[in-house]
């Protein structure tokens, strides 16, 4: 079906500003196929079903809107964690600031070099999981990323990774427009934790594909910090094998626009997938969107979505979460909760929870709430001598902390809580 003219023109305008990177045959093939997907789908527009609450114009414009660099003076969130450190500055790998890419039980290389090799395991994942995630909902910006990303990390984990990999994304150029694409493969029984922190670029498009083999576990914790003017769209695509585990948590504060998509496919029995997010939104320029799609295609799997957003001064929070249970995915246990805490009358929380179930023996529940600070609790705290502002902060932190509890590693959870409370304080 031909695209409407407006969309076709916008897509052409966007694509004409880009050239396909050169590489090995498999990489070129994957990129060309991705480009064909973008051309067929067209870049997203406000009228698309999953972009009704979020205007994609800044993400699809031929050039990135300027974003002043924000000097927070803060150390990156996971600076204190014992991890292999990797730094990207405006989407460009910084070898000097990064550790050697070597760790026991883990093969790590850059996408830039992997895509030059004639034979590479990444061939079976690169663009493959992204492509699977295009049905039933189209995600053209992820395909765009697959076509044009030149760098990222390519990680294969064969055992228990002794340390996490911590990626820090720094933003130093006002007009930087970065595409990064990570490919992660966990072999049977492998365990791996990925940490990500930082605002990345004036405009950032990132795709992470994670292929999780049977009984493997993937943990992911990220913070998208206080860079007021940046725009970002991220896509996290994962396929889960039998008895595998996927856990992802994201803390976001500020940024003009953030769209985090998580697309999971549970293909093996007894798999577990948990996705959570906490967001501190401040100001009418703040727009934060979590769009999650979890497909159950195996028996006895569990999925859980927990999203909390605190919004003030006209900030907008969006949650679009879907659980799709395919016929045959019996004994599915699906849970989804999204909650907005509005600190004033100008802010908005827009939620679109969806369940689509074709199996008859499943337990799926979802809830979505939006409200203000509980006045009774506030009075209770104040009657004990806690000043109003501190009491509000305590209640706000408590509200968000329920999402942070989804992080399994206590040390990492504390790290995130500390950062969250710092960000909350600064926004008062």
């Amino acid at each position, binding site marked *: 079906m031909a695209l409407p003219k407006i969309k076709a023109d916008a897509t052409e305008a966007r694509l004409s500003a880009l050239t396909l990177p050169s590489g090995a045959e498999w990489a070129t093939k994957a990129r060309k196929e991705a480009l064909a997907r973008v051309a067929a789908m067209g870049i997203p527009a406000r009228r698309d079903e999953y972009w009704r609450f979020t205007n994609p114009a800044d993400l699809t414009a031929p050039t990135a809107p300027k974003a002043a660099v924000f000097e927070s003076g803060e150390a990156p969130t996971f600076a204190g964690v014992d991890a292999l450190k990797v730094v990207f500055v405006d989407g460009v790998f910084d070898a000097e600031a990064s550790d050697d890419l070597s760790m026991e039980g883990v093969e790590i290389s850059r996408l830039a070099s992997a895509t030059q090799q004639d034979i590479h395991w990444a061939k079976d994942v690169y663009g493959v999981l992204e492509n699977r995630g295009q049905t039933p909902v189209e995600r053209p910006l992820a395909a765009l990323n697959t076509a044009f990303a030149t760098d990222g990390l390519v990680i294969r984990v064969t055992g228990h990774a002794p340390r996490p990999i911590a990626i820090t994304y720094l933003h130093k150029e006002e007009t930087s427009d970065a595409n990064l694409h990570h490919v992660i493969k966990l072999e049977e029984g492998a365990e791996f934790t990925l940490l990500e922190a930082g605002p990345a670029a004036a405009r950032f498009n990132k795709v992470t594909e994670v292929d999780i083999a049977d009984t493997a576990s993937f943990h992911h914790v990220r913070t998208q910090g206080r860079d007021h003017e940046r725009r970002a769209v991220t896509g996290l695509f994962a396929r889960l094998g039998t008895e595998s585990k996927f856990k992802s948590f994201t803390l976001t504060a500020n940024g003009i626009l953030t769209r985090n998509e998580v697309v999971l496919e549970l293909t093996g029995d007894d798999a577990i997938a948990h996705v959570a997010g906490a967001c501190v939104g401040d100001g009418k320029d703040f727009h934060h969107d979590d769009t999650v799609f979890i497909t159950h295609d195996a028996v006895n799997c569990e999925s859980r979505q927990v999203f909390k957003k605190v919004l003030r001064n006209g900030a907008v929070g969006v949650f679009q979460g879907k659980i799709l249970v395919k016929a045959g995915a019996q004994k599915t246990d699906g849970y989804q909760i999204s909650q907005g805490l509005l600190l004033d009358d100008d802010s908005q929380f827009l939620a679109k929870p969806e369940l689509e179930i074709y199996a008859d023996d499943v337990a799926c529940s979802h809830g979505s709430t939006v409200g203000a600070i509980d006045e009774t609790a506030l009075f*209770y*705290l104040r009657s004990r*001598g806690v000043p*109003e502002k501190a009491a509000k902060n305590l*209640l706000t932190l408590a509200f968000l902390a329920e999402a942070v509890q989804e992080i399994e590693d206590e040390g990492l959870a504390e790290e995130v809580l500390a950062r969250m409370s710092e960000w909350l304080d600064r926004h008062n």
Partner: protein
Amino acid sequence: MLEIKNLHVKLEEEGKEILKGVNLTIGAGEVHAIMGPNGSGKSTTSYVLAGREGYEVTEGSATLDGVDILGMEPEERAAAGLFLAFQYPVEIPGVGNMTFLRTAVNAQRKARGEEELSAADFLKEVRAKAKTLNIDADMLKRPVNVGFSGGEKKRNEILQMAMLEPKMCILDETDSGLDVDAMKLVSEGVNALRSEGRSFLVITHYQRLLDHIKPDVVHILANGRIVKTGGPELALEVENNGYADILAEVE
């Protein structure tokens, strides 16, 4: 200690007058009880004194050691030494009981210009005080009042009182939702806190709480006014004959 003069209060939204000229003076170290039928204004009295929103004072005053408290924020009243034990202690998911207590204690100390308690000192003190109230460590770790039984919630109120060391304690229907054993335990906690410099205002429907917390003075509140004041025997009279006789006698 606490002096309430000609206090008139109406509900902000409905404009309905609840207190119609309450006069009450509680001396240092005294325990006063307010009894009264439903709707007489008992809970309103406690909320107005603690500073809850939704009430408008149209006339009269309330002072704590000579200082007007009605113009203060709730947290300032707390720092000045006022404490309200809630009839329905509030559940606060996500806030640990220990965090809550430490925040409150240190906020009050800070407001009074005192040094904040270190985490270690605080822990030592809270453990010792919890033990006397039969509060186990698990209750301190859980979120404030979440999933607590009625008795646990009230014991938690008394623990807060013990930690905050107020000089004027208001107990709003502390006996509600308690079985006999729990009431005994809570009362023992209160009695342990009685001292020369600390006064209590015990608000209750029933005389039975006053068997455990013995008042010096008993007031009967009806239709927004204190209609009768007497000794502990007044509580017994209510228990035996109900409020009707007293009200009839007053009218």
